[in-house]
């Protein structure tokens, strides 16, 4: 067992350390990475260091304008919170679907996977506009609540944070499920039987066996959902409306409507840095759970 593991590790190291003749094969990818990712990123940083919209002089004013303004700091915090809330909802839904997946027969699993992938085949614009129909005051949600007597007047979840989170959770759910199910599908059923045979309740099995073993999938899913929902410009602006202001909207306004590229660059970098920060925390949590 240990010998096999060390063999594997040695193999991995050998594969990482490329011998000289293999470098040219990596070069195209490396050049693409430098040319189309690092260089634009450097350009973004350079743009952000200009003081005025016309980019005539360098200065920290654009950064100060963002970091010194409570309004923009709130926009940044709201954006991250939106991501976290969406992650929380997709996490609950994802684990629930994952448990169904765990109990399903192979044929049922295939069907379930097909249903999960299906929404990805639709454009996000179409899915977002469908949510206008669902969440509006004459929509399915409002009408259902009226019919059930839960409410006396039609209501609209459009332009509310709750409505936005619900629709984002649906839109981003496949990103949570695909990594999660691929990990959960590999859990040895014997471990669950063993847990039950040793007297653990269903909840204890979930907390002590299933979730720790699913941690890599959960982490990957959370990262994808978080990064994608904080940047979901279309859903944020169409479902969220004009009163919920998030960083992607500010970036769009500043770069495309008022041409203040330095300020747009500052907001973009702040979004990038704060999202990376949260992703770092999620990643760290994931590793701790596994450990």
């Amino acid at each position, binding site marked *: 067992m240990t010998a096999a593991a060390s063999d594997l590790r040695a193999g991995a190291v050998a*594969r990482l350390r490329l011998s000289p003749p*293999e470098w*040219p*094969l990596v070069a*195209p990818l490396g050049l693409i990475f430098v040319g189309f990712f690092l260089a634009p990123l450097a350009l973004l940083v350079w743009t952000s260091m200009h003081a005025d*919209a016309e980019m005539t002089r360098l200065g920290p004013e654009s950064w100060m304008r963002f970091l010194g303004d409570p*309004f923009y700091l*709130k*926009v940044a915090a709201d954006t991250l919170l939106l991501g976290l809330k969406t992650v929380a909802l997709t996490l609950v839904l994802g684990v629930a679907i994952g448990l169904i997946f765990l109990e399903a027969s192979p044929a049922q699993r295939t069907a379930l996977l097909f249903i999960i992938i299906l929404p990805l085949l639709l454009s996000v614009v179409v899915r977002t*506009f469908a949510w*206008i*129909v669902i969440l*509006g*005051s*004459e*929509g399915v949600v409002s009408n259902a609540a009226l019919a059930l007597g839960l409410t006396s007047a039609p209501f*609209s979840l*459009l*332009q509310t*944070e709750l409505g936005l989170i619900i629709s984002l959770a649906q839109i981003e759910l496949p990103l949570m499920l695909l990594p999660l199910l691929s990990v959960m599908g590999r859990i040895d059923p014997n471990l669950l039987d063993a847990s039950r045979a040793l007297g653990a309740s269903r909840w204890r099995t979930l907390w002590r066996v299933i979730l720790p073993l699913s941690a890599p999938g959960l982490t990957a899913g959370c990262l994808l959902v978080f990064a994608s929902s904080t940047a979901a410009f279309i859903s944020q*602006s*169409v479902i969220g*409306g*004009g*009163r*919920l*202001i998030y960083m992607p*909207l*500010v970036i769009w*306004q500043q*770069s*495309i*409507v*008022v*041409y*203040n590229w330095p300020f747009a660059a500052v907001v973009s970098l702040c979004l990038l840095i704060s999202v990376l920060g949260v992703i770092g925390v999620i990643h760290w949590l994931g590793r701790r759970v596994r450990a």
Partner: protein
Amino acid sequence: MTRHLFNRRAVLGGAAAATGVALSGLPARASGDVIAAIYPGSWEEAFRSIVGPALTEASGVNLELDPLYAVDQIAKARAARGLAPFDVFVLDPGPAASGMEMGLYQPLDMSKLSNAAKLPQVFVDDFSIPVAAQVVGIAYNPTKVAKPAGWADLFKPEFASRLGLTGFQTTFGTTSLIEISKIFGGSETDVAPAMEKIKEILPQVAAVAQPSAMAGLFQQGQIDLMYTNTQTVATLKGRGVDIEFAVPETGAIAFVTTMHIVKDAENVENAYKYLDTVISAGVQDKLMQAPFNFIPVNGDVDLLDTLPMASLDEMNGFVRHDWTKINPLRPGWIEQFNREVAA
């Protein structure tokens, strides 16, 4: 194992094939072409189906469209710095004034445009010709609300609760908010009174939305009042939505969408042929019909009776705005609107 999966010959062969495929997809910039920026959506559809064939028939020039919003065109032309990404701009007044200040256009030689004399001359200048007019006013759902008499009505409780608001990101939004401001004591350069009024009715309004979402919200019955242009009203009406256009008592707002030849354009002669085709009576008349509903700019075209004026000359009496004054203030207004309406 992995080492031999892709040998050098396979990789090089694959790369060569991929490059070949990519190159074959490059646009042909032959002499018979003109590359024109165009608004995505109905403009692109209209120009592809009407202007393209008309241009080929009239002068053998092939029209290639680059779908971009006005602000994206400016951004792209600005980012290209001297290497024209297309030959012709199509712009609304705000971005058109910005592009002028940035020196992105070349002067036009009107003698090369046989239809130039038929244009409403108030909208023609040395660097641009109008290609379509827009008239902005109030759209309302006649089955749900009474016809509003003017901008002030929007702020009465019975109207405010059905109103959809949008900010300064678009030309129709900016000009409407300016007109609202004028009613309450503001001016073309002072929108503070409008902001005050909006803050007052904010808890009641049906929606504050991004401009692109407005038509959808109206269609879904989420809002029954909005400020918009006649084209949006005609398009929604065409889809069976209960919607009418009301001219405010202080007058409807008129502005034109203009075309400009890019400063370093590659296909200047073809660009002139393109402009002349766009403003020809035949093309303008087709663009006016459903489903495109453009307001024509060629005086030879008989206007449809659904339009809020009988002749193009009446547009001289409509409210117009000076975008060289608005542009410097607009970034501040956009930011202020964000702050005021933020939940």
